[in-house]
């Protein structure tokens, strides 16, 4: 009897080893084939020029803002202070390093360079990535709030709330996000800002119309996640809570939502991952997130192959680490 599973377990890895080898062969063939194609098209790879889009060192010049004499120079271990006096004014210029361009007693014109120092700067792609993450994080937080209330309205017995929620959800889920972004920016954005202008009020920056479009978009999907989460809780829970004399609202807050939230968490994180990818569309309304930043870098550098790959990999790193986190959450909530 013990022989049967034994032979089976001997046979399986062998047959699967073939497929595993085939996988790697196919992977290398694809990459190699692609590389060969770019070679034959005379594309010159310049990977060494990619790091500057992440981090670069810039020379910063410190310039005088008044006319006068250099009356004192103090140099400490890691910073320099130049004092300029003239016309009853006196200015202190402090900057790191010891790279001075003037001496004590020098005549200084306005705008003269007093010294220089080097400063590390975040590159274009990192700026874009930070913008992408910020926009997505704000959108998902607000989207969850919108979705929570819409989801509750969706399962309400009150027809006003229920129909409103259904209308909202169906419109948003039935139209492309790109179209929604265009409408927010070119139609609603223009209208709203014109009206604010007429009332002599502030103007809303375009970034917020971009975020708003993502919030409304995510809200509709979150609403369906919330609805499914609440409806997945056994009917007996609501009955038990109500039979203790709890009102519907108290039962929802104390009994149903805490349980539903646990189940909602993994799909919510999945929605967040989608949102990060969807935020790439905001480039069309001049918001400089990762995709738009990459496009700008491509225009100035003429390195489309490297930059677009790097852009894709950056999205992949963010979404993949998030989905790992989601798996961890799912495992934990399965244990609880």
């Amino acid at each position, binding site marked *: 009897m013990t022989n049967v599973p034994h032979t089976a377990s001997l046979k399986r890895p062998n047959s699967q080893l073939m497929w595993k080898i085939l996988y790697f062969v196919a992977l290398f063939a694809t990459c190699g084939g692609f590389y060969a194609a770019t070679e034959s098209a005379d594309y010159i790879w310049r990977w060494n020029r990619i790091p500057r889009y992440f981090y670069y060192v810039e020379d910063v010049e410190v310039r005088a803002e008044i006319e006068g004499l250099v009356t004192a120079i103090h140099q400490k271990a890691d910073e320099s202070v130049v004092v300029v006096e003239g016309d009853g004014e006196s200015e202190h210029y402090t900057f790191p390093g010891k790279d001075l361009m003037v001496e004590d007693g020098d005549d200084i014109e306005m705008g003269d360079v007093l010294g220089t120092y080097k400063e590390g700067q975040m590159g274009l792609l990192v700026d874009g990535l930070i913008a992408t993450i910020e926009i997505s994080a704000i959108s998902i937080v607000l989207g969850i709030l919108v979705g929570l209330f819409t989801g509750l309205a969706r399962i309400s017995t009150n027809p006003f709330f229920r129909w409103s929620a259904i209308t909202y959800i169906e419109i948003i889920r039935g139209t492309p996000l790109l179209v929604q972004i265009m409408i927010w920016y070119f139609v609603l954005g223009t209208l709203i800002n014109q009206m604010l202008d007429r009332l002599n009020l502030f103007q809303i920056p375009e970034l917020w119309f971009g975020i708003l479009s993502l919030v409304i978009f995510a809200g509709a999907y979150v609403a369906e996640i919330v609805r499914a989460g609440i409806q997945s809780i056994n009917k007996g829970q609501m009955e038990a809570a*109500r*039979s*203790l004399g709890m009102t519907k609202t*108290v039962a929802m807050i104390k009994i149903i939502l805490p349980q539903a939230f646990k189940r909602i968490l993994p799909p919510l994180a999945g929605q967040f991952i989608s949102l990060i990818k969807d935020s790439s569309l905001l480039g069309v309304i001049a918001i400089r997130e990762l995709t738009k930043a990459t496009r700008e870098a491509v225009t100035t550098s003429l390195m489309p192959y490297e930059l677009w790959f790097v852009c894709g990999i950056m999205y992949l790193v963010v979404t993949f680490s998030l989905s790992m986190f989601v798996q961890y959450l799912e495992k934990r909530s399965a244990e609880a």
Partner: protein
Amino acid sequence: MIDVQNVYKTFFVPHEIQALHDVSYHVDPAEVVVVIGPSGSGKSTFLRCLNRLEHAESGHIMIDGTDVLDPKTNINKVRMEVGMVFQSFNLFPHLTVLENVVVGQTSVRKRGKKEATEKAMTLLNKVGIHAKADNYPAQLSGGQQQRVAIARALAMEPKVMLFDEPTSALDPEMVGEVLDVMKTLAQEGMTMVVVTHEMGFAREVADQVVFMDEGKIIEVGNPEHFFTNPENERTKLFLSQIL
């Protein structure tokens, strides 16, 4: 304590069915009533109508002088006085045993946390689960969960307790511990309506036994009469099948 007059209830889903047909009944304070009958006879519906978990469409249901079916009645006030125990326990899985017994007291009875916890511990002690107060329901056996559910209902200090097949979902060896708690309650003078298939419990504890079939009350009597000398043919048939 409970007065039911000419109650009708129809279900339309999944198909139209007359669940209760002109049901009238009266329960005195401290009385223990056991409702028996074949499945689909309307006994659970009858019980669930008493605290309006099911909304009867006509008739009157008076609990301690308040008409449950009157739209002006604050049903949550009535439910505070009517404890309910379910077949599937329905403990709150995200709360500990202690919190299960506390949550109703603090959010409905508006008791302080300390008072509610003391009350909860007393009740858990009474049903014999005090050692598991900090465990979660999933870590308890079915019998223990049902005893916690009874403590949860008692914490509201109800005047009436409703039991909807409290032992049907239990392994046979756990039925006894739950029935013992219920017997103690009955001896202490709690007004109880119990839907059950436990004929031993009915015989031993019930003041009145009600037999229901096809949405109607067919026969009412004390256990003595009921189990030795039933009059109705359908009662006889039912008893012969289960005894």
